[in-house]
């Protein structure tokens, strides 16, 4: 059977294109769409009012107890999140109307709608809860690879253990997901003595937050509701007395370009090229076997130093 060049192309080109059109199975946050509409516009949210918070840290204590986290080695304010501190109240100074004023800021996972951590997670540990919008994590799956630690725009996830041992686990705020799923509120919201924390449907929290910010602008002209639209909308909204930059927060946080490039380009390219290689080799085998059969059919006598070369 003489295979014309045309027939060869007719077979091989579509076959080789197959892996390029087959979509790689991704996490819930797909490359194109993002989480489901219900999460994007709805779900639940925490509203933190930075103008009411005075840094008493009762929420830290409640969180530590509820999640059975190890006690701190020493008393006193925490400076940063850690595998054993899933929320931390930092007190800083912000300049308002030319005067320096004490301001509190609660650090925790902000449960982004466009969550970078979910995008880069290599084990499917981090995922969106489609109903509440909470970014949950499955402790059994986490292998401590640390992709989320490096890529989170807010530097929230923290890994425990030492790298050398290979036994590492990521930890972060879960917004008390198990409680929320049974219609209760996160423990921090319940315990706050100054009513700086509210919890409810996200739309409701956004409205409440926007109203409070409007009132706040009388005394704090730069007051803002951080989390309303950032990264598709955060599920932890924070009322700030001054601009985000004054608190050391990014004004326009984004999913890092590296993460998008890795998940969106390098990944599909890798899967595509791998598939292409396999398909190409299969095609090679088919053609070569055919040619081999023909060649063997042509030589009737057994090889006696018969030439295969030139």
């Amino acid at each position, binding site marked *: 059977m003489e295979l014309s060049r045309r027939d060869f192309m007719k077979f091989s080109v579509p076959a080789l294109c197959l892996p390029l059109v087959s979509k790689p199975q991704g996490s819930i946050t797909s490359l194109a769409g993002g989480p489901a509409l219900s999460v994007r516009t709805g779900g639940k949210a925490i509203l933190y009012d930075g103008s009411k918070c005075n840094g008493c840290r009762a929420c830290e204590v409640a969180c530590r107890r509820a999640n059975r986290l190890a006690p701190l080695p020493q008393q006193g304010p925490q400076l940063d999140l850690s595998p054993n501190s899933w929320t931390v109240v930092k007190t800083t100074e912000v300049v308002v109307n030319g005067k320096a004023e004490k301001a509190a800021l609660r650090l925790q996972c902000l449960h982004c709608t466009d969550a970078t951590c979910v995008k880069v997670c290599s084990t*499917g540990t981090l995922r969106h809860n489609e109903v509440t919008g909470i970014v949950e994590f499955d402790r059994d799956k986490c292998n401590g690879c640390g992709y989320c630690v490096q890529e989170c725009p807010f530097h929230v996830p923290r890994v425990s253990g030492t790298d050398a041992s290979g036994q590492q686990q990521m930890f972060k705020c879960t917004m008390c997901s198990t409680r929320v799923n049974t219609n209760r509120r996160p423990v921090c919201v319940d315990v706050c003595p100054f009513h700086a924390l509210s919890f409810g449907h996200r739309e409701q929290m956004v409205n409440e937050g926007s109203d409070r910010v409007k009132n706040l602008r009388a005394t704090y002209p730069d007051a803002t509701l951080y989390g309303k639209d950032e990264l598709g909308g955060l599920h932890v909204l924070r009322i700030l007395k001054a601009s985000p930059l004054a608190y050391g927060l990014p004004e326009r946080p984004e999913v890092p370009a590296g993460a998008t490039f890795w998940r969106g380009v*390098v990944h599909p390219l890798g899967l595509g090229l791998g598939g292409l290689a396999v398909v190409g080799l299969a095609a*090679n085998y088919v053609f070569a076997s055919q040619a081999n059969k023909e060649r063997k059919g042509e030589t009737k006598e057994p090889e006696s130093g018969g030439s295969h070369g*030139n």
Partner: protein
Amino acid sequence: METEIIRYSRPVRWLHWTYAGAFLVLFLTGVIIFIPALDKLAGGEWTRMFHRGAAILLFVEPIAYLILYPNSAWRGIKETFIWSKDDLDWARAMPRYYFFLDEKAMPPQGHINTGQKLWWLMVLVSWVVFAVTGVLIVVSKGLPTRALFEWSIMLHDVAFIGTGCMLFVHIFLSVIHPLMRPLRSGPWNAMVHGTVSREYARSHHRKWYEEINKVEIRNTDSPDSVPLVSSTAVDRFPGLRR
């Protein structure tokens, strides 16, 4: 068919198989980590620990060879950097040769053909890339900026994709492709026992075959008075046993 032409010495074969073993573990654990559909297997410690253990082996093995057999190692490395117009001729003949077994179209090849040289160069370069980026991924994890971490992951992945695809090609062209059969006289035998048949050497690496025999074969049909053992292999490793 008697396999009497020596292609690879025992130390080279040992390096090949230990490297291949470590690489296979790295490749498979890498695939588990890379493909989202397999994320259940990637969880926990084991995938990571196997990946790291095999990485240490992969790094150490060529170093050990370099220390034990520096001349051979250096000769081997030099081989990857000799490129000429002959390589373009191989590339031109490549589709017809591999797809349609058109051996007349393929010019005579040396000790390793252009494809093998390309793969060898790829292995060398990827070894460096994997080692450097692998270590950087581990140590750059706690750093305040993400640039070093991201670049390391990116290059590590690119090397993984490139060598992964070429690994399929390598295995295919060593033991599956009809021209490399039967196994007991072709490349498989070369890397397991060190030898190939005269027939194979003459048809696949003619330039090398003529060189080691120092005889120009005019009439390809008649058996010539060629030495039974490749003289260069014995010179390199005195006391070499097949």
